[in-house]
C-alpha cells in the first residue's frame, strides 16, 4: 500500500509541475487559434438568433483581388526563399562537414553570425547597405563608376534576400549536424565502387539525412510564411505578405474579424507542413524510446 500511495504522489507531483506551462500553452495558443477557427465559420451572433455555419468570410476573402494577390505573393515568396536557402546552405554545409581547415572555421562563424542579429537591426542594416545611395551603390559609383545598381529595397527581391540572410544559420546548423551523422566510411565505400560525387550525394547522403532535412524544410517554410518584420520594413506596399496584411487589417483598419480570417487561412495553408514537422519529430522520439 505504501508504495502505491508513493507512486500516486509522484504522479501527482509530475502533473502539478507540468501544469503551469501547459495552461499557458492552452490559453495562449490553442484557445486563441481554436476560437479563431470556429469564429471564421460562424454567422455573426446577435441576441436571440442562434449561430449558424457559414463560409462567407472565406468567400469575401477570395472575392477581394488584393487579398488574393497577397496570399499568392506570400506562397510565392515562401517557396522561392526556401528553395534558395537550400541552394545556398547545402554547399556550405557539405563544405563545413568535410573540411577541417582554418578557412572552414571562419566560414562557420560567418554563416552562424545572423543568429545574433535581430530582424529590426537586419532590416535597418540592409537598407543602409543595399538601399538607394547605400554602401554598395556608392562603392560601385566611386570605384567602378557604375551607376546602374538597382536596389532591392521595397521590392520582392529585398524580402527574399533578407529572409535568406536571416534563415542561413539555422539551416546550416541543422544540415551540418545531420551531415555529421553520415560516416566517412559510407561515403568512401560508395566512392571506391566508382559512384560520382553527385550520385553519392543524391543516393547516399540525402536519404541518410532525411530527418533533419524535413525539419529544416518545415520550420523554414512556416517561419517564412509567418514572417512580419522583414516584409514590413523591406517589402513593397503591394503586394504584401500575409503578416503585413494581417497587421494592417488589425491595427490600421481595425477590422478584427478580417484579420482573424487571414490568420486562420495561413494556419490552414501551413497545417500540412506543421503536421509533417510534428510527425517527423515524433517519429524520432518514438524510435528512440
Amino acid at each position: 500500500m505504501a508504495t502505491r500511495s508513493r507512486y500516486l504522489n509522484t504522479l501527482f507531483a509530475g502533473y502539478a509541475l507540468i501544469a503551469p506551462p501547459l495552461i499557458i500553452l492552452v490559453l495562449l495558443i490553442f484557445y486563441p487559434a481554436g476560437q479563431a477557427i470556429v469564429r471564421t465559420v460562424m454567422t455573426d451572433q446577435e441576441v436571440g438568433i442562434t449561430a449558424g455555419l457559414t463560409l462567407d468570410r472565406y468567400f469575401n476573402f477570395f472575392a477581394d483581388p488584393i487579398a488574393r494577390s497577397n496570399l499568392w505573393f506570400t506562397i510565392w515568396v515562401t517557396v522561392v526563399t526556401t528553395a534558395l536557402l537550400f541552394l545556398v546552405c547545402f554547399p556550405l554545409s557539405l563544405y563545413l562537414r568535410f573540411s577541417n581547415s582554418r578557412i572552414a572555421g571562419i566560414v562557420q562563424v560567418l554563416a552562424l553570425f545572423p543568429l545574433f542579429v535581430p530582424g529590426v537591426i537586419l532590416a535597418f542594416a540592409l537598407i543602409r547597405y543595399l538601399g538607394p545611395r547605400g554602401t554598395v551603390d556608392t562603392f560601385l559609383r566611386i570605384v567602378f563608376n557604375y551607376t546602374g545598381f538597382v536596389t532591392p529595397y521595397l521590392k520582392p527581391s529585398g524580402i527574399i534576400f533578407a529572409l535568406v540572410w536571416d534563415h542561413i544559420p539555422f539551416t546550416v546548423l541543422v544540415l551540418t549536424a545531420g551531415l555529421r551523422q553520415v560516416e566517412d566510411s559510407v561515403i568512401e565505400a560508395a566512392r571506391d565502387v566508382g559512384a560520382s560525387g553527385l550520385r553519392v550525394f543524391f543516393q547516399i547522403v540525402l536519404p541518410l539525412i532525411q530527418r533533419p532535412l524535413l525539419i529544416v524544410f518545415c520550420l523554414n517554410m512556416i517561419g517564412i510564411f509567418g514572417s512580419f518584420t522583414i516584409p514590413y520594413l523591406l517589402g513593397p506596399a503591394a503586394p504584401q505578405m500575409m503578416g503585413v496584411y494581417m497587421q494592417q487589417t488589425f491595427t490600421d483598419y481595425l477590422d478584427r474579424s478580417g484579420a482573424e480570417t487571414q490568420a486562420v487561412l495561413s494556419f490552414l495553408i501551413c497545417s500540412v507542413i506543421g503536421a509533417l514537422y510534428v510527425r517527423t519529430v515524433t517519429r524520432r522520439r518514438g524510435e528512440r524510446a
Partner: protein
Amino acid sequence: MKIDPTPAYRQPTIFGYRISTRTLRREAFGIFALVALTLIIIGPMMTVFLWAFAERWRQPALLPTEWGLSYWYETLARNDITSAMPMSLGLALTVTALSAIICLPAAYAFARINFPGRQGLLLSFLAVNAFPRFGLYVTIAVVFFRLGLVGTLPGVILIQLVNTLLTMIWIPTSAFQNIDRALEEAALDVGAGRLRVFFQITLPQVFPALAAALLLTFVSTFYEAQGALIIGIPGIRTMAVLMYSYINNQIVVQYGAVISLMLWLPSLVLLSFAQKFLRGNTVSSGFGV
C-alpha cells in the same frame, strides 16, 4: 588490388605539403564562400557601425566625411529612448524570470518523473513552431482585445511568454535527461540530503544548459518586436518596437545606427558564449531536431 585514384606525382603541393585535387577544389570553394559571406553578412553590419560614428556622411563618399560621438549623446538624451531602454530591459528580465519559474520545474518533471502521457505532453509544446508566428499573434491579439489587454504591460508580457516556452522546456529537459544518475545515488548513499544532492550534484551538471536557455530567452525577448508591436502599441514601446518607426520614418540615420549598436550588445554577450552552445546540441534541441 586497389589502384590509388590520385597518384602522388599528380598531386600539387602548397608550401611543400602534398594536397589532393579534391582538397584543393574544396578549399577553393571555401575561399569563395568566405568572400561571399563577408560581403553579404559583414558588409551590412559594418555599414551600421560606420553610421553610428559618422558625424557627417556626405554622398557620395565611401567613408563618413566626419567622425564623432555627438549622435550618441543626442540619441541617448532622446525621451523615447530613455523610456524605452528600461522598458525593454525590465520586460526581458520579467519575461525570462517568469518563464523560468513556470518552465524549469516542468522540465525537471518531464525528464525525471515517469507519468502517463509524458511524451505526448512534451511534444505538444512543438505546436508553437507549427503555427505561422504572426497569424498566431493576430489570433492572440483578437482575444486580448476583448479582454482589454491590448496596449498594456501584462498583455505584452503574456505574448512574449509564448515565444519562450519551447526553449525553456526542451533545452532544460534534455539536460536533466542527460544527468549521470549514478553520481546522485552515490551521494544519497553516503548520506547527503535530497536538497543537498540537488544543489551540489544535479544543478552543476545542468548548469551550462540552463544558462544557455536563460540567455537565449533573455536575448530573444529583448529583440522580440512583432508581438510587442501588435499588442503593445500605443501604450508600450520597447527599443525593438521603436526601431520600426526609426526605419520607416527615416529621421536621422545615425539615431537608428546608434540604437542598433545598443540593441546589439546583449547579442555580443551571447556570441561570446556561442561556441560552447553550438558545439553541443543545446540549441538544436530547442527545435526538436
